[in-house]
Each structure stands twice: as structure tokens, then as C-alpha cells.
């Protein structure tokens, strides 16, 4: 497995040899920031294209085919269209908060995005309470959505934002509980360390029954967390026009849209990291030849394959089930997922204490 840490250390020593340490770190931060945003945009474009194609396939259609080969340039054209559109200011809105809200959503999304370990040595934010930081950073997005709904002075936006607040804050709990189940198994909260512990088997295999239950709960709650799938009632098109971003136009709307898709990717990649081993190849203890072949595939390919597989799973769920009502969503969370999650946590503790895991 190639360690990208060697490359980054080499760049750091080269930079410090020609300039002071502080300047070198500043320069690295700028470069990393630019690369992060670039990756963010690329992921968003891939995700939107994938959404269209996968959704079309589930509905027995072909999806975009006209612009570029297999419609691959379609999304890029859409991005340019979005960039050239006018940003309309609503007359009786709270101008400052109205303009601030999309940036808060994007900020939360980028901060959560930076936590993801893409390959060995390719972690941007990696410290001993990484899981906690990830949960905290991704929760900031709710503030942005509530602000967007409140400041745009529209009943649809406000109802959408309030629903969204109720839903996202509730489902945060289930996401936390299912991640906590895995933290009990690993006894670490550092993402790179969580991945390293899966070298001899992914946690979904090592943790068996409680890990699988936690995985399913995580997928359901994660889907609700990013306002998608059967849980997309904050932006229920048929009843609330577009929910919290009804009054937004141009790139401000684009930021919400992009953040929604990248949040889906973040949720999927965190699921891939903590349940399916992140960039860690599939290892079967005892089969050394097989393991060597698996090791030959670079880590970031493993990571992206797993992440996009989970994205596909979530899209499958989204394009299968009808939307839930607000009371059904809260019932599902508080009467089903949270009790099951708590029992599952207890089960995992028992499994770990009696060393029943592999």
C-alpha cells in the first residue's frame, strides 16, 4: 500500500529548505484548501451525473444522452448555466442572513469533507477525536438551513427549514449511536486509526451482528441526515415548492444543491470508512496470494469504489420508496431507530467485553 505521507513529507522538507517553517505551512494550507475545493466540485459534478443516470436506470430510462458522450458534459453545462444566472434579492428578506446561509451550509459540508481519509497519508484533518469533530462540523449545516428558511421571508421556506431542523437534529442521534457502536469496537475516534484497525477484516465482518445492524441504521439515518431519499420532506417539491431554498436563485441555490450532493457523498464515504474499511483493501486472513493482489490496487481506488457503492445503495433507496410524513419520520427515529440503536450499542459492548468479535 503506497503511503502518500512520504510524498507530503517530501514536499514539506523541500518547502522548508527554501523558506521559513511558518510560511511553508501557510503555503501548504493554501494548496490543500484549493485542492480540497477542487475535489469538492469534481465530486459534486460526478455525483449529479451519477444521480441522473442511476435514477434514470431505476425508472427504466436512459438519462442524459445528448450533451457529450453518454451525456457526460451535461452537468458541466448545467454548472455554467447556474453560474450565469442572476442572484435575485428578495425585498423583505433579512439580507445579511439570506446571503450568509448558503455559505454556512457549504462551510459545514467542506469541513466534514476534510475529515475523510482518502488514502494512506491522504488525510487532511486527522486527530484523536476526528469522529467527534466530524459529527460537530456536519451539524453546522442545520444552522445554515434554518437561517435560509427564516431569512427568506417565505412560508414555504420557513416550513421546509423547520421540518429540516426537526428531522436533522433527530437523526443526528442515530448517526451518532451507530458510529459510537463502531467506536466501542475500535476504542479510537481517529479516522486514520479506524481504517488501520481494519487491515485484517472490515468492521462489518469483524463486528458481525451488531455491526450490520449499526450499518443499516447508519444508512437510514444518514439518508435522513442529508435530506434525501424517502426523507426529503424539507424540500418536498409537491407541497413546499422547493423547501428551504425556494427563494434562492443562481449560484446561491447552486451552493445548496452542490452541498446536498456532496453531503450524500460524505455520509457514504464515512460509512465506507467505518464499516467497509475505507481505503483498506479486502483482506482474507490466510489467503496471502489473494491479499497481495488486493494490495496492488491503490487505496484511493478502494475508497472511491466503496464510497460510490454506498452512494448507489442510497440512490436505490431514494428511488424506491415514497416520501414519509413528518410524524412518520419522527416516529421512525424516536420509536424505532433510537431504541434499536441503544440496544445495539449494548449488544456491541457485550460482544467486545466477552471478545465475541473476530
Amino acid at each position, binding site marked *: 500500500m503506497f503511503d502518500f505521507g512520504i510524498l507530503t513529507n517530501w514536499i514539506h522538507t523541500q518547502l522548508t529548505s527554501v523558506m521559513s517553517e511558518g510560511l511553508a505551512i501557510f503555503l501548504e494550507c493554501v494548496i490543500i484548501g484549493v485542492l480540497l475545493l477542487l475535489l469538492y466540485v469534481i465530486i459534486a459534478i460526478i455525483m449529479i451525473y451519477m444521480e441522473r443516470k442511476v435514477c434514470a*436506470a*431505476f425508472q*427504466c*430510462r*436512459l438519462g442524459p*444522452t445528448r450533451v457529450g458522450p453518454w451525456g457526460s458534459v451535461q452537468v458541466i453545462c448545467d454548472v455554467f448555466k447556474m453560474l450565469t444566472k442572476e442572484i435575485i434579492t428578495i425585498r423583505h428578506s433579512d439580507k445579511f442572513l439570506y446571503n450568509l446561509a448558503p455559505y454556512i451550509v457549504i462551510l459545514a459540508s467542506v469541513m466534514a469533507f476534510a475529515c475523510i481519509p482518502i488514502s494512506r497519508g491522504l488525510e487532511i484533518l486527522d486527530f484523536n477525536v476526528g469522529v467527534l469533530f466530524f459529527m460537530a462540523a456536519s451539524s453546522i449545516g442545520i444552522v445554515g438551513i434554518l437561517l435560509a428558511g427564516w431569512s427568506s421571508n417565505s412560508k414555504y421556506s420557513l416550513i421546509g427549514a423547520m421540518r429540516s431542523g426537526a428531522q436533522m437534529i433527530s437523526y443526528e442521534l442515530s448517526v451518532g449511536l451507530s458510529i459510537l457502536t463502531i467506536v466501542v469496537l475500535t476504542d479510537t475516534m481517529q479516522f486514520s486509526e479506524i481504517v488501520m484497525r481494519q487491515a485484517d477484516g472490515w468492521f462489518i465482518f469483524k463486528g458481525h451482528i451488531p455491526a450490520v445492524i449499526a450499518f443499516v441504521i447508519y444508512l437510514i439515518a444518514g439518508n435522513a441526515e442529508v435530506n434525501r431519499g424517502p426523507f426529503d420532506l424539507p424540500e418536498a417539491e409537491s407541497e413546499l415548492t422547493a423547501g428551504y431554498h425556494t427563494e434562492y436563485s443562481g449560484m446561491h441555490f447552486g451552493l445548496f444543491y452542490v452541498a446536498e450532493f456532496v453531503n450524500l457523498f460524505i455520509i457514504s464515504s464515512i460509512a465506507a470508512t467505518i464499516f467497509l474499511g475505507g481505503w483498506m483493501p479486502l483482506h482474507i486472513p490466510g489467503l496471502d496470494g489473494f491479499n497481495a493482489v488486493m494490495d496492488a490496487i491503490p487505496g484511493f481506488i478502494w475508497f472511491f469504489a466503496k464510497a460510490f457503492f454506498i452512494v448507489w445503495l442510497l440512490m*436505490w433507496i431514494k*428511488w*424506491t*420508496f415514497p416520501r414519509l410524513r413528518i410524524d412518520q419520520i419522527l416516529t421512525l427515529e424516536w420509536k424505532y431507530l433510537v431504541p434499536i440503536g441503544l440496544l445495539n450499542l449494548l449488544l456491541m459492548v457485550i460482544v467486545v467485553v466477552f471478545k465475541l468479535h473476530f
Partner: protein
Amino acid sequence: MINYIKGLFKGLWSLLVGLKVTFREFFTRKITEQYPENRSTLKMNERFCGELTMPHDENGNNRCIACGLCQMACPNGSIRITSEMVTDPDTGKQKKHLVKYEYDLGSCMFCHLCVNACPHHAIEFSTGFEHAVFTRSKLIKTLNKQ
């Protein structure tokens, strides 16, 4: 409590059934027709109502008896039948004969009621759908051969 657990598993089962249906759909052949590209091979569905036609046999005879049922059945008044009374030379009886069968494609709503009304299957819908022309008058067609 037992209802809670039963409901939970029943719900899960129904969700899995739904997922199975869409999973199968994901891999079935897609029904999208890429129209201008596949124009030469495009096969329309048999029951598609494209345009009203009156089939003629090899001698140029149609089966229309000019009864006017289709004209009466048409909700839009798209069909206009001109008929005349002729005397049959064999029997000497008066008989209605079709002179002109005018069909206005522009006001047709493809409801298929005229074909249903016809007692002799003299008219039917073809599957042709490329109806665009440059003038309105071209849409008024005479279906019978004269």
C-alpha cells in the same frame, strides 16, 4: 410490544420487496427511444394512434358504406363525409355511396372513437406520427381514393 416487533419486521419485509422490484428494474432493458437516430429502425407500438387511414384493397376499393357513424362519433367534428345516392344496377335499389371522406388531422384528438363506431372496419389508425407540415390546409386529408 408484540405488535411493535411484528410491525417492525413486516415493515422491513415490505421495504425489501420494494427494493427487489426496483433492483430488477435497474437491470432491465431501458425503453427510451432515441428518436432521430433510430428513425429507420423505430418500431411503434401496434395500438399507437398516429393518424386515421382508410385501407384500400388492390382494386382501390374501400369498405366504407358512408353511414356517417364515425362523423357522428367524432367529438371534435374532424370527419366530414360527402355521400350521394346511387341506384344499384343489379337490384335497382337506392344505395348510399361515398364521394369524399375528409379528415382534419389538425383537430383530431386521437380518441379512437371513430374506429370503434365503424361497423365495417373501414377506417383504422396507422402508427405514423410525423405529422408536421408548413400549412394548416395540408392537415385536411381526403382518405378515400377517387
